[in-house]
């Protein structure tokens, strides 16, 4: 199972190590550093690295490499999933997951890691249960602890651990009982030069914040669902992801936005023309907001002189990254960005065309058409507040030019 964990920052310092079996020397990370050097960017470090006696499995999140060391044949997905759980837990505990925060809370981090694995076997990975075992630090608690000498560590058996619903603690009480659901959909798409869709799929999730007394049994009824169109569950306490779903590329996915572009590098002259316009397509009458256009320009582009019709733009001549924060799209007056590019004199036309990356948000719309009809609660007598919100966002939304 999982032997050890090393946390490494992007400059290659190991700033935390945890061993669940015997201690593995940190020199094992040298193999990781080699791979890190070979990869041009941090994102490209391969997730599985063999060494003579161990395997290193890593994930890269929040500019930190979480490197797990294993010695025997262990399912790599098991390890990677676990590492993601570690990241999520840190984020849950400390609000952000960053090197300074981890260092600031190193004892809690260590205690949490100790509870998450035993001899490399997962022990408590549910945030609900972990928080019962080790209370997350809050300013108030730190002060109280210092004065009273009490601790972060709970002294109770995590009650949920052994019940038939291990994900929910028992004896939950609230004065205001509420259940909120967010249906969030992300569109991943590749649009070709001419504007037609090469592939488009939707990744959807339903996140929930449920604060309900006792042991409620909830039923969500959907507009579009397989045959029965209902989902029945006992919720964990607090925030959780109820489900995720996927609408595959084989289905017809509505594309809410289009990009018109005209980018030309002229062979001889050292000036190129650049113009893009963004507009709404299938939005079901909703407004598109939070639009940000980014594009990695070819190396041959020295600088860009552009004028946006709205929003602000930047071009970094070193990284060649163009970024245009558009904001809302007004269908009556489409936002555009045009101007010229100065190109390296004498150099030939760049080989590659820039790809345009799009971010946007649409409130109150689930683009797949998924809709929650009603929420019912059984098992408890009170009437909870209920709410549901929809949102559609761009995931990896790319337009080729």
């Amino acid at each position, binding site marked *: 199972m999982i032997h050890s964990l090393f946390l490494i920052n992007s400059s290659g310092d190991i700033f935390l190590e945890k061993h669940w079996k015997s201690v593995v020397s940190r020199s094992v990370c040298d193999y990781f550093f080699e791979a890190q050097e070979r990869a041009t960017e941090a994102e490209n470090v391969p997730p599985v690295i063999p060494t003579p006696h161990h395997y290193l499995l890593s994930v890269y999140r929040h500019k930190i490499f979480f490197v797990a060391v294993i010695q025997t044949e262990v399912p790599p997905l098991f390890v990677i999933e676990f590492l993601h759980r570690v990241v999520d837990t840190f984020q849950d505990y400390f609000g952000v997951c960053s090197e300074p925060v981890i260092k600031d809370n*190193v004892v809690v981090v260590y205690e949490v890691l100790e509870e998450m694995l035993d*001899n490399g076997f997962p022990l408590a990975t549910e945030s609900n249960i972990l928080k019962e075992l080790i209370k997350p630090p809050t300013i108030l608690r730190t002060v109280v602890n210092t004065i009273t000498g009490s601790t972060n560590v709970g002294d109770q058996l995590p009650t949920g651990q052994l019940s038939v619903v291990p994900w929910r603690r028992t004896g939950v009480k609230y004065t205001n009982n509420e259940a909120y659901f967010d249906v969030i959909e992300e569109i991943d798409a590749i649009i070709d030069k001419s504007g037609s869709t090469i592939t488009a799929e939707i990744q959807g999730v339903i996140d929930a914040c449920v604060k309900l007394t006792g042991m409620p049994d909830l039923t969500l009824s959907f507009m579009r669902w397989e045959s029965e169109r209902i989902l029945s569950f006992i919720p964990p306490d607090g925030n959780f992801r109820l489900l995720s779903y996927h609408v595959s590329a084989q289905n017809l996915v509505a594309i809410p936005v289009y990009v018109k572009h005209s980018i030309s590098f002229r062979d001889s002259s050292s000036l190129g023309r650049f113009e893009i316009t963004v507009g709404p397509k299938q939005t079901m009458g909703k407004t598109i907001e939070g639009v940000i256009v980014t594009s990695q320009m070819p190396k041959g582009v020295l600088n860009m002189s552009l004028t946006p019709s709205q929003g602000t733009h930047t071009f970094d001549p070193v990284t060649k990254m163009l970024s245009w924060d558009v904001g809302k799209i007004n269908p009556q007056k489409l936002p555009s960005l045009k101007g010229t590019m100065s190109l390296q004199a004498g150099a030939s036309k760049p080989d590659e065309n820039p790809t345009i990356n799009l971010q946007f948000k649409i409130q109150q719309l689930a683009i797949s058409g998924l809709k929650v009809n009603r929420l019912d609660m059984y098992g408890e007598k009170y009437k909870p507040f209920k709410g549901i919100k929809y949102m559609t966002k761009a995931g990896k939304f790319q337009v080729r030019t």
Partner: protein
Amino acid sequence: MTDSKYFTTTKKGEIFELKAELNSDKKEKKKEAVKKVIASMTVGKDVSALFPDVVNCMQTDNLELKKLVYLYLMNYAKSQPDMAIMAVNTFVKDCEDPNPLIRALAVRTMGCIRVDKITEYLCEPLRKCLKDEDPYVRKTAAVCVAKLHDINAQLVEDQGFLDTLKDLISDSNPMVVANAVAALSEIAESHPSSNLLDLNPQSINKLLTALNECTEWGQIFILDCLANYTPKDDREAQSICERVTPRLSHANSAVVLSAVKVLMKFMEMLSKDLDYYGTLLKKLAPPLVTLLSAEPELQYVALRNINLIVQKRPEILKHEMKVFFVKYNDPIYVKLEKLDIMIRLASQANIAQVLAELKEYATEVDVDFVRKAVRAIGRCAIKVEQSAERCVSTLLDLIQTKVNYVVQEAIVVIKDIFRKYPNKYESVIATLCENLDSLDEPEARAAMIWIVGEYAERIDNADELLESFLEGFHDESTQVQLQLLTAIVKLFLKKPTETQELVQQVLSLATQDSDNPDLRDRGYIYWRLLSTDPVAAKEVVLAEKPLISEETDLIEPTLLDELICYIGTLASVYHKPPSAFVEGGRGVVHKSLPPRTASNESTESPETAPAGPPSGEQPDVIPAQGDLLGDLLNLDLGPPVSGPPLATSSVQMGAVDLLGGGLDSLIGGPNFVTPPAAAVPANLGAPMGSGLSDLFDLTSGVGTLSGSYVAPKAVWLPAMKAKGLEISGTFTRQVGSISMDLQLTNKALQVMTDFAIQFNRNSFGLAPAAPLQVHAPLSPNQTVEISLPLNTVGSVMKMEPLNNLQVAVKNNIDVFYFSTLYPLHILFVEDGKMERQMFLATWKDIPNENEAQFQIRDCPLNAEAASSRLQSSNIFTVAKRNVEGQDMLYQSLKLTNGIWVLAELRIQPGNPNFMLSLKCRAPEVSPHVCQAYETILKN
């Protein structure tokens, strides 16, 4: 107030300061000090000097403090074993605490203290915790057994913890079941042969029930364990599949992939006509596609596995091409994997789309990716004939970009296209030649040279072109040199008049000025050919080349089947069987897909038609660049089995028997009644014996004389279990007769008489051919050696394991029972040599599902020695051939009940690990045959 205050740099006096604080009377100060110690420890500072002071803080009611001290203990106990003993009492006490959390915490921590001395003290508390009323404690204790096993395996076995652990598989709490399975799996990994996870329909049922109720991690353990089970028939396989299928929609990708493994494996057993089979296929696609929307690291592992799945069952994802399209900001390792799968899925139906994508990729920034994309276009051309023309024109477009590495890759793949579609696209040669100067990579240069040589008659200035390469001949890499040599010889054969000088030049460069034996030898061969028989040279050098197949980089089918059993593991990421990379000498059990067995059909019914092509006809893959012209050298390889037939015939056999009998009575006479103190077993047939047996070997070279390997005697029935009678023994096979050599020792105080022996029914009908003859009463401390002749005409009943023999021995005191495993090679008969034609036909005829693969490790013999050693145990080499430096021995043997076993033994010089493939109509004997191989080869 944050913990960063604990990170002040180590000053000299810091340890002293901490020591003082740890011994402080104030609780708060103590705790703060322990925290500081832990913080130092986490960043790798050595604070082991504080061991006694920290351990002193252990006896506390404060749970956090206790946990912190435990953390410290786990880290440093090993370096301070004597001190660590101080902690034992607290553990024992904590294991009886009324609070289950404390009990669990104690049992958890004590297993992490890797100190031998302490381990013994922990057995009693662990035993209690394994039976604790609280499941939380039990599940923690289950893991503790695995920890303890890692420290001291013998102790765990002696204490009976493994049995307790096995019992926990039937625990009422699913979490306990999951942890027990996980612990057993981990232990089993270091004992591959042990039957720790002995699965039967009942335990499977329990696992399936627990599967629905345990945590996501537990589900992974259980699914991986289920995957090792082989259902008895298709109905059981289907019912397990039905219960596993819901796991496919789990949010944890590891659960999903483990479920996919179980389904892919058990599907093998389902008939394709079944409705359920089709349903299952359909259900597999969505979860696999969904894995690709996860984080890139997960995607990578998923893609490596999908690569296997697509090769095994292309129908699952054939409509999902688009999810493999590359996004420009995917990490490079994801891009490359997606590309690979795109080509595997390419078909006439989607080729247009794929090509458009590939062309797009070829203009990206990342060089590795662009190269692979260009190569992919070539592979598409070879795979989908209808698209070849479009691929070629796309490649030409790319060559026009003049981007150096794009041009070079394009030329490499165009060469393959020329081989696949000869005389179709030669019009592009002119364009290729324009780019000659920009080629600086050996592979591209070699490809270009091959093209020039192959089409020399159509290229007017072929001689000039090749001559230009010749100038820097010695600076070229070997593959370019070889290619150039061959190309010029081709040119000479096509245009002999103008190129005589050139060919002489290259031949002398290759033969006289080169240190490379490959190059020199090829040079000499050409030289000799050209000088003695130019017509033959033409036939050889300009021979028609075999067509290259459509699919490239295919994983060999047997390996693929094995890898399917390892979906979701590291093996699946590396596309290598675990035996190829798993650390240390730990043996790895080879897994194979279960054969398709219908519940109402017998295993041996000939209707189970072979699925897929027999292994002799695997598609050829494009040869690696190095031996592109290897077709020349491979000419003599022709049909799969070609070695000269070995001189034997059945007529000789009879004579040999006679001779063997004679010889045996001369030399091997004493073999039947060996003197009591005979320490060396009379293994006259084994080649490792004395000079006599060397002589014997000579004879076995002439014909086949039987003297199988004889294992040293082992104790079968210890005196303790048989009121003082100790029986040890072994099995021998000498010239066609099997006997059981027994050694009876009387360790009791009274005389033993009236011996008799009886066998239970067994798989091969072994039975005593004569009564057990102990002539005189056996007095205390006396030992007698008896050879009991056996025959194989007894009644037959299939045993588990197959070679199990249950024996009852009676004497004047009581009846005693024991069972023993006989080595299968005592059943290998003397006329087990198959005719070559017959062998070929039979090999093809036996369905592929019946093929089993094994690895025999650490065998120091070469092919010759192995073959002769096996022959003395009646495993006969039918043919021998050498492929790519490996010796392949094709062997046959026959069992007493007439079952034939066909074998392919692959031996690579210098590699002590042999690969053994066995084919048999009764595949259940294969593992035992393999074991026999191993015994014979290693002794």
